């Protein structure tokens, strides 16, 4: 694990008004999020992709895939927190790269009041070009899904250039990096 890169990523996420915490194991993820937000099971939604990735993970909340498809959007819009995985972190800009995924719709990082990304430490890249190349090469030509780059919570400076965090998207943004070598 490149610590300098992780330090840079953390400081960039902070600069953008987000937070970044390191978990030594997947078990620690839940305590970090719970301590941060103290939310109930009903208020937290996590993607089915997280369940696929961590079989030993326990997160307080509801698996989005267990909600019937026609109700999902309303549930997401009412949720206090959406938790997703990602496909890369960019140290230079404090960015999480999310590729559209069957068990992780884009609305989950968009509609809930807050968004937390869970990433693995080996998903960290110094710059966007390296990460994008890797993603591009892992899909057949012409089959690349849509991609979203997320750097911090939604924000605006449209009123007298004063920064207001939380406009149409999440009002808070956090990243938990799981570093198993920690």
């Amino acid at each position, binding site marked *: 694990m490149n610590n300098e890169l992780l330090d840079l990523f953390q400081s960039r996420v902070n600069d953008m008004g987000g937070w970044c915490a390191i978990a030594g194991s997947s078990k620690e993820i839940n305590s970090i999020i719970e301590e941060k937000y103290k939310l109930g099971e009903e208020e937290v939604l996590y993607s089915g992709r997280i369940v696929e990735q961590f079989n030993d993970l326990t997160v307080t909340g509801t698996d989005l895939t267990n909600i019937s498809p026609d109700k999902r959007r309303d549930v997401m*819009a009412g949720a206090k927190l959406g938790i997703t995985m990602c496909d890369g972190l960019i140290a230079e800009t404090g960015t999480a790269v999310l590729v559209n995924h069957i068990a992780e719709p884009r609305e989950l990082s968009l509609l809930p009041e807050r968004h937390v990304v869970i990433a693995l430490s080996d998903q960290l890249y110094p710059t*966007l070009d390296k990460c994008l190349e890797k993603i591009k090469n892992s899909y057949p030509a012409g089959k*690349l899904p*849509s991609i979203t780059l997320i*750097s911090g919570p939604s924000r605006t400076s449209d009123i*007298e250039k004063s920064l207001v965090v*939380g406009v*149409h*998207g999440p009002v808070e943004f956090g990243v938990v990096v799981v570093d198993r070598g920690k």
Partner: protein
Amino acid sequence: MNLSPSEFKSNARRAVHDQHLREKIKKATGTSLVKRAEVVGEIPEWEELRQEGHDRRKEVIDNLDRYIRTFTGTARDRGMIVHYAGTHDDATKIIYDIIRRTSVDTVVKSKSMITEELHLNAMLETNGIRVIETDLGEYIIQLAGETPSHITAPALHKSKEDIARLFQEKLNIPYTDDPVKLTAVARERLRKEFLNARVGISGVNFACADTGTLTIIENEANARLCTVLPDLHIAVMSIDKIIPSIDDLPLFLKLLPRSASGQRMTSYVSMINGPRSHHNPDGPRQVHVVMLNGGRLQLAKHPAWKESLYCIRCGACMNVCPVYQSVGGHAYGAVYPGPIGAVVTPTLFDMKEARELPFASSLCGACTDICPVKIDLHHHLLLERREIVDRGYKPFTEKIAMSVWRWFMLSPARFELAGRIGWVLQKILGKKLPLPGWTPQRQAPAIAAKSFRSLMKGDSKK
């Protein structure tokens, strides 16, 4: 204010005397410049990146026909429906037809300068379709019934008190000038619209020719909401938005947010690779791309003026321009204000109508220095000035004045004579030499009894 570029002089005169307006513009542009300098300063290879950006844009504009074909092909392969619009009228008609077929009467929309160029909202509203602007700045000016005064900060000319009064009146809320509270009101109002929307309209920042990817850059998440939630997404772009490859995106994502808002990266970058499909599991079922030519193909063939098509619409040239800082965006009376607006308005739209704009510059070159894709803006202004004069768009009196000036300048004796005439006139008229356009605001400098040249001659005799 008359929103026509031909009224620039009178609009500018009014704006210059509006102290309130000047303070707001100065504050906003100053803040942007400071933030930009900070994050650009972090990149030692910034100059090389600008050159690279310039070269990538030149590659596309030099081969625009081919890139349009390539992009159209890849975007169609990705399942998008691509429409080519030769003229502005064609584009609005295509967009209206797409919406009409869905039978919706309301659309949500994120920021797009091309739709400003098309006057799309007015046209749709005439046809009974309500357009909801969702970018906070655009929402504000839509409520006010105005047009953007800056391409990335459309409500830059409004103070928080202006916005407070506007929200109080139009949204029936108690007066508050707290930007946090005002933003929360907009969030609440627009969230309902997003969740009900069936059609979303957006602009496009970069369209990748090799993958068909539509890239949209923003901070508020309103463009994500407009392009993810509705069943149907209409992306409106001009043909010059194409970049060769998705591999060029990291470069442009370094140049654009830093130049536009002084950010290392905007909060969100959406890279849309087609409608909902087996490998793209959510999002709209239909993605339409409306590609506007609107005179750009012809402009791309002009050896000098084609460079203005390299622009990536960051707005940095506006922030740094002493003229923009003094008069603001509305005075230009054009969709695109500032130095880039003064360059493209005459060549892309109407040179006669916009004949004053290339003269709205001190030619200091700050715009050229700040441009992230190295467009030689102030030299383009000079070239266009020549063209405007050659076409006879300047007043006859100016032509006479210039001929007289030229006659005096062409020989040392006549130059000397001009000095004497000036001195005599000054003796008769006092210090108020009547030079229209100059002396009402300024005092003409006193002309010395003995010219510098005659003093020099006297010295050499000693």
